[in-house]
């Protein structure tokens, strides 16, 4: 197997595998995903509700990626990314509802707003390390739903009842439902965001970020401006999550403070850990996990209590907890990491066999 070697001596192929999995697989998967609305729509295999689910998985992948940039790659723990998600969602919803902006124009606006909010929050957060930062961000996650309900903001945010917005339909009279169209939009945005993240992580700045995570003092002796990197990545991380929030608002057609309770922040964090920290494929797995786990936990809980006829009711949260403990125990590096290790083991074994024979 021929391996090209890059300037710094590391095999580039290895780096590709680390960052994005095998490239060919990636392209095939993306093309298949892109064709889904055509195939699924024509055969009727995937309902509009199905596309809604798929779009939400993509949305949460972007949000988990945002958190992963901060926590996974830079080592700053955040329990409050639900708050940035909410800010992004409300930015989009308010712009569409009150000022009738076109939906696509709200995405860059949500990105800017969240970058600024994230950057500003990152400034004082600089003084906080580890658990203290986690607590500060946690406070943010708890405060935001209350702020959204605040009486004097009600005219803008719609208060407890939230805002209903109308989902955009496909442009130019294309024969696709709005759910199919928004699936495409989400996919394109996600691909762009992941591509940007990969480039960022592959750059000098990306190496600086991970260097800070591994040892901040050593990084600063190398001439890295730790404070600036930390605040900027806080902003970028919030930007990613905010764009995800804006997409969520448009796709879901509805925002309410209840959508952004602090369990959302916890879910994003759990999704990141389960998917695989500091890994781009891990963010995708994490996004899928965030969107699906509750429903599966509910279904599993029901079928277990239905089939075994247990005298006690099994709560979905019990199933969720057991699944979580199992996953962390079996795959300490997350699902993506676990699968990669499994793959590596399998290929090594088969490679070993061919050598010996």
């Amino acid at each position, binding site marked *: 197997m021929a391996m090209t070697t890059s300037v710094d001596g590391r095999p580039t192929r290895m780096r590709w595998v680390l960052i994005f999995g095998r490239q060919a697989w990636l392209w095939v998967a993306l093309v298949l995903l892109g064709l889904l609305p055509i195939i699924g729509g024509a055969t009727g295999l995937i*309902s*509009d*509700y*199905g596309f*809604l689910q798929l779009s939400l998985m993509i949305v949460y992948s972007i949000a988990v990626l945002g958190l992963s940039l901060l926590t996974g790659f830079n080592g700053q723990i955040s329990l409050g990314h639900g708050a940035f998600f909410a800010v992004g969602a409300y930015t989009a919803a308010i712009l569409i509802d009150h000022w009738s902006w076109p939906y696509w124009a709200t995405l860059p606006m949500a990105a800017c707003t969240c970058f600024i909010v994230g950057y500003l929050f990152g400034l004082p957060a600089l003084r906080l390390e580890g658990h203290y930062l986690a607590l500060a961000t946690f406070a943010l996650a708890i405060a935001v739903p209350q702020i959204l*309900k605040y009486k004097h903001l009600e005219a803008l945010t719609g208060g*407890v*009842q*939230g805002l*209903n917005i*109308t989902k955009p339909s496909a442009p130019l009279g294309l024969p696709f439902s709005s759910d199919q169209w928004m699936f495409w939009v989400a996919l394109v945005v996600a691909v762009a965001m992941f591509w940007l993240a990969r480039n960022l992580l592959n750059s000098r700045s990306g190496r600086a970020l991970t260097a800070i995570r591994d040892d901040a003092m050593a990084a600063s002796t190398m001439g890295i401006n730790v404070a600036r990197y930390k605040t900027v990545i806080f902003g970028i991380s919030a930007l990613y999550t905010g764009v995800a929030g804006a997409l969520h608002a448009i796709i*879901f*057609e*509805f925002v*309410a403070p*209840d*959508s952004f*309770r602090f369990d959302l922040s916890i879910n994003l964090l759990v999704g990141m850990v389960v998917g695989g920290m500091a890994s781009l494929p891990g963010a995708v797995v994490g996004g899928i996990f965030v969107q699906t786990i509750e429903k599966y936990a*509910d279904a599993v809980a029901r079928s277990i209590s239905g089939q075994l006829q247990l005298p006690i009711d099994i*709560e*979905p949260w019990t199933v969720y907890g057991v699944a979580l403990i199992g996953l962390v125990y079996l795959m300490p590096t997350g699902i993506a990491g676990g699968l990669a290790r499994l793959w590596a083991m399998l290929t090594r074994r088969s490679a070993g066999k061919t050598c010996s024979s």
Partner: protein
Amino acid sequence: MLHSRTLLIVGSSVLCLTLALTPASAQKRYDEGASDIEIKIGNTNPYSGNASAYGQIGRTIEAYFKLVNDQGGINGRKITFITYDDGYSPPKTVEMVRKLVEEDKVLLVFQTLGTPSNTAIHKYMNQKRVPHLFVATGASKWGNPKEFPWTMGWQPDYATEGLIYAKHILADVRDPKIAVLMQNDDYGKDYFNGFKQGLGKEADKIRQVATYEVTDPTVDSQMIQLKNSGANVFFNITTPKFAAQAIKKAAEIGWKPVHYLNNVSISVGSVLKPAGLDASQGIITAGYLKDATDPQWNDSPDMIVWNKFMDKYLPQGDKSSSYYIYGYAAAATLVQVLKQCADDLTRANIMKQAANLNEVEIPVLLPGIKISTGPTDFYPIQSVQLQRFEGEKWKLFGGVISNER
């Protein structure tokens, strides 16, 4: 020759087929979710979370449709009832209702519970033109056929109920100083606005208003605040869990106002028993359903049937909970509408028949309370009777108060 004979046979058989099919297709008309053998009905209920006491309503409806199916269904069609848990969380309701309409392809959505949850799907249901029938909330906005012709409420609306309490306070309590505890959403505000309207010029009698969020763990601090306002009348606008907490806390801190409790939390089993029956004495509310714990209904035929239904289909159900009565009556109303639809099970006809109920008697409603709707009247039940909690049951007093629009 052969050719023309074949033509004749084909021609005549086509004619026969057309004759056979035409009247049939004129009689039976279906929209998505209905067929010769099935009627699909969707629902969401809070089976988990802070408002899970309401989940009994969903279970009762499920059981009632089982009973209807066991008795042969409606005009020969069996009901398939699909109900999902939304945890009283509007975003969850949006998702589940979209699943019901787009994936499960239900004919209609029935008794979705909660004012915030129904507000979240209000626009969607009317855009999709899917009947959104007899929602389990009394907000006054469900009776707006001009703007939302696909949505209809069921129970008496909150604003009217609040107004009735206000009138009663002014007539009955000397020098009232009023404290209000309300849930901070449209449901709470609806009650409160009706209440204020009822007080009219006397609105300054309201000394203190405290609010809580449905996600709050308790209302203890609000209760202390209300007691300290020196009020002698308490209007309690809360959902079951918080209602029980408020009643209990008032007793604990020794606050004994004239207590008005909103109808949504009058369940003896789910609210008053957990709060303590001693603490619940003297509470006043407005009812429209029979109370299963009240011995005066022991011999009424509808309650005998209801008791048999509970024993057979919900043997574990606590008969003292009013939600089993509520779900039963609501389901019976829908069955009446579907019977009226006969073989025309289109969504348009369902709305037409739902708006065509004339003084219909539904089991387990209080005597004298009937269901009436019309093309401009989307408020099915508009009468209540005041009742006071004495001993272990509600005791009715005064006559039936009606507010037919």
